[in-house]
């Protein structure tokens, strides 16, 4: 018959069992006390929330598109050569090279997937430009609202109608390149996109081409 453990031995084994939790608790308590004179944890920027940056012309490869921002300029000449600016309006043109990476043709701006990029005040993940506020052209031949064949990169002009004076030469805009995760859609035939987010940012300086 084994010997009955002494009360002292039982206490030690219980402490050993709880040791990891006690250590974690102690670390948290110390971290909390240390953080108070530093302004608290609210002032700490999580590294996971930092959006990486890339340069103009560099390509970001997402799940739906590979995209690079090539240029950003103000103009009064619409790419179709006959649409004229209205008084008080101008056009801000984002020149970007895109390549479809999925197994089907991709429209750069369509209802389901996220917009390929965001610009504060013009196009966000949850706020698309209104009808007439954004027009997309293929740079090489001016095709309106082009569709990208998989694996065939091409340069597009995203033409935003903006107020005169809303942007000026030298303004630095942060363009967010977006990404999302594809899932098989339940109701429609095709893909639905979830976890839409800005994956990379590009700081781009506005040129005045007027």
């Amino acid at each position: 018959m084994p010997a009955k453990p002494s009360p002292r031995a039982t206490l030690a084994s219980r402490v050993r069992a709880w040791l990891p939790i006690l250590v974690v608790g102690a670390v948290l308590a110390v971290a909390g006390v240390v953080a108070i004179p530093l302004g608290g944890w609210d002032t700490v920027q999580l590294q996971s929330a930092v959006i990486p940056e890339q340069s103009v012309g560099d390509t970001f490869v997402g799940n739906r598109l590979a995209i690079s921002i090539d240029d950003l300029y103000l103009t009064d000449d619409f790419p179709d050569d006959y649409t004229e600016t209205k008084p008080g309006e101008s056009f801000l043109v984002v020149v970007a090279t895109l390549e479809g990476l999925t197994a089907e043709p991709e429209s750069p701006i369509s209802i389901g997937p996220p917009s390929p990029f965001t610009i504060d005040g013009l196009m966000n993940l949850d706020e698309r430009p209104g009808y007439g506020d954004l027009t997309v052209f293929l740079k090489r031949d001016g095709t309106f609202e082009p569709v990208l064949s998989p694996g065939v990169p091409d340069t597009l002009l995203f033409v935003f109608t903006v107020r005169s004076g809303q942007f000026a030469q030298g303004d630095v805009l942060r363009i967010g390149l977006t990404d999302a995760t594809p899932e098989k859609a339940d109701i429609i035939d095709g893909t639905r996109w979830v976890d839409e987010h800005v994956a990379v940012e590009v700081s781009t300086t506005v040129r005045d081409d007027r």
Partner: protein
Amino acid sequence: MKRGLAIVAGLGLLAATYAVAATTPTSQLVEAPFGSRGSLGDTVSSQHLIATVHEASLAHEVELGSWRGTTAGVWFVADATVEATLESKLIEVDLFIDGVQYGGTKRGDGGTVDEHTVAVRFPATGPLLIELPADVVNFPGARSAVLRISPFGDDRLDSVVEIVIDLTTLEVADRVELEPARDGSR
């Protein structure tokens, strides 16, 4: 003995579950259209369309009417005659290579057959243009690409024309001049 039998049976059922999960047809397969298949030069009929793809080639640049089509890839160029069987149809063309869908271009100023409505007994003849990656002939599926000609829209469980084409045997031109699609046969 009983425990051993239970373990073996359990593992067997688990394996069977994986086998069923792995072999269950995808909705893409279950809902695939019914393709009437043929080759270049064949006249192929589906429920809605009668189509003949007379010839095909690849080109780096095309001229179609006043439109000059350049590309970072390469153009699949075909000459086809299509008519409807039951009622007028707007048609759609897609080329499938290794399960990837490449759609007919809409850049050709309305000069391609798939931008026309085809009518019963009134065929339309002219070019089909599809933009493909520059190195497409090196793709594993390039020898068995499938050109699908179907009524415009959702073709799941529908009847379509499919032409099987070996892209590696096609002539590659620097530039081709094409006539816009017209009414009538070739």
